[in-house]
């Protein structure tokens, strides 16, 4: 059976103060398209490292990272850049919007790498912002928005080019409960209504409760993948 994500024997170690610290050690992992995964584990267990490998931001020391049929471990620098632009949307804990650009321009940024016309890019960016409920905040700068709004702009940026895979690294880590819930509901909707595959790192059990499946990572070893027994029903608004 084909998986969207297929990791085989992946190792990744860092040099720190002359010592080699092994973070991922012979990891195997398969994930299916169209599902919403929560990646959980204690701090320092290698969650971000794993996410970066899957997103093509980093390369493994050994092993294969197959995403949508492409082996990322063997792509060159600019091919990898190209691949990222086409296939993944990133959402970070710290939002990472460009402070000098308006919300709209931030969302337009990844669209600059597409062959779309200027008008089509604008339409798509505005649609993405409307989808996250910020159609009326397009021309605000990041610092004029709340944390929750900033993260929704970041999500709009992640989906602007319509990638299949969305990778979110602790997207609610810097948010209060109600903003966090809004962001999580949004991710769940993207999964349900647009069929996006979502991999979200979190150590918040409440956040994890939005996912279909829970992946546990501990000391570079994969624990279990389980179906989420107590999955929260989403608000279920019609599309």
């Amino acid at each position: 059976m084909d998986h969207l994500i297929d990791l085989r024997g992946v190792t990744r170690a860092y040099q720190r103060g002359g010592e080699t610290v092994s973070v991922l050690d012979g990891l195997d992992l398969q994930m299916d398209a169209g599902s919403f995964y929560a990646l959980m584990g204690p701090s320092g267990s290698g969650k971000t490292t794993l996410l970066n490998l899957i997103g093509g931001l980093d390369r493994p020391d050994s092993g294969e990272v197959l995403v949508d049929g492409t082996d990322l471990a063997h792509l060159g620098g600019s091919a990898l850049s190209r691949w990222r632009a086409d296939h993944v949307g990133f959402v970070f804990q710290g939002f990472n919007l460009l402070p000098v650009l308006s919300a709209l321009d931030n969302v337009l940024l990844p669209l600059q790498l597409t062959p779309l016309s200027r008008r089509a890019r604008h339409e798509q960016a505005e649609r993405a912002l409307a989808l996250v409920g910020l159609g009326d905040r397009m021309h605000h700068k990041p610092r004029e928005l709340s944390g929750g709004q900033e993260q929704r702009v970041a999500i709009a940026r992640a989906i602007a080019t319509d990638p299949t895979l969305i990778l979110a690294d602790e997207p609610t880590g810097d948010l209060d409960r109600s903003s966090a819930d809004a962001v999580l509901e949004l991710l769940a909707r993207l999964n349900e209504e647009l069929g996006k595959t979502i991999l979200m790192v979190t150590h918040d059990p409440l956040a994890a409760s939005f996912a279909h499946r829970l992946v546990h990572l501990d000391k570079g070893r994969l624990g279990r993948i389980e179906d989420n027994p107590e999955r929260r029903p989403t608000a279920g608004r019609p599309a």
Partner: protein
Amino acid sequence: MFRNLLAHPVRTVLTGGSVLLAVFLLCFLRATVTALTSSVEQASTQRLWVQSAVSLLVDLPLAYESKIKQVDGIEWVCKWQWFGGYYKEESNFFAQFGVDPETMLKSYPEMEIVSGSYEEFAKSRTGCMIGLDLQRRYGFKVGDRVPIVGKIFPRKDGSPWEFEVKAVYRTTSAAIDQGTLYFPFDYLRESIEGGSAWGDVGIGVFLVKLRPGADPTRVAAAIDLLFDRGPQRVQTTTEAEFSRQFVSMMGNVPLLLQSIGGAVLFAIFFAMLNTMLMAGRERTRDIGVMKALGFTDAVVFRSLLGESLLLCLLGGGAGAGLAKLVEAGLQRVMSAQFPGFAIDAATVGVGLGAALVIGTLAGLGPGWRARGLTPVAALREGI
């Protein structure tokens, strides 16, 4: 790039402003150097100068004139003698020469009379012709009697010499200044011979006007040969070389000005580099984000380099524009020492070129660093 510059308006304005000042200064210095050297470049090829082979400070015998005139290819000769006096106070320095009025003006097609009459000057014994700049500086006008204290040729009764202004000239060439007083050499000679002034009768330089088509090198060699066995050897040079002697007598001012220009550029380069390094550092996170989104290393490199160039060219453009704007005012101030001072296209080009080079050099380092950052490292570092 524009938006990044606008994100730190104070820093952008300060850096851009310093580039502006640097380019303005550079334009000014270059215009000065050009004015100096153009006196050499615009020198006439129709005039030769005969001076003592020993030094400009040694006079030649009066009798040399008739011998020089016999050389083939010479149209006429004009005597020049350095008077070396001053007006009222020693600090009021300007050049005075005793010359032959019959041949002086016609040796200089680049000179024109703006007031008074040259014929009056040529006819007079104690008249003088002054440059327009002297009229502007001291208010001398036609009919005024200008007292000049003779240092080399003092009058025996201790009084200053007096020359009545008969004509005022201006020039159309950077090679000739507008700040000299000319009087008839014969007045000086007669005063010395008649016993009313101290000094020796001699000639500092002979100005030789070539016949059209005459070969300057050949004529110069012929004159030099004439006095090869004395009594006093001469050195004949083209006007260009003659001017060059004067320029180098100014203690190599061009080199000094060029070094100042270089130092200014150097300082500005470091200010600019600092700004770009700061910009590159504080945008580490943004660079990581751009790369994560799929922008290639080359694009990131270009955007930082472009930002540096943009800032430098904006500052440099304003600097060159300012120089051009105040050109007329500067000309008024500078014309006494530097006739032909002008902010020309080449000068503007040099200013903008310097801005371009600084922008490129200052953008390369930070751009290269940004290029080499991996997105993971940039995002980790930028948190």
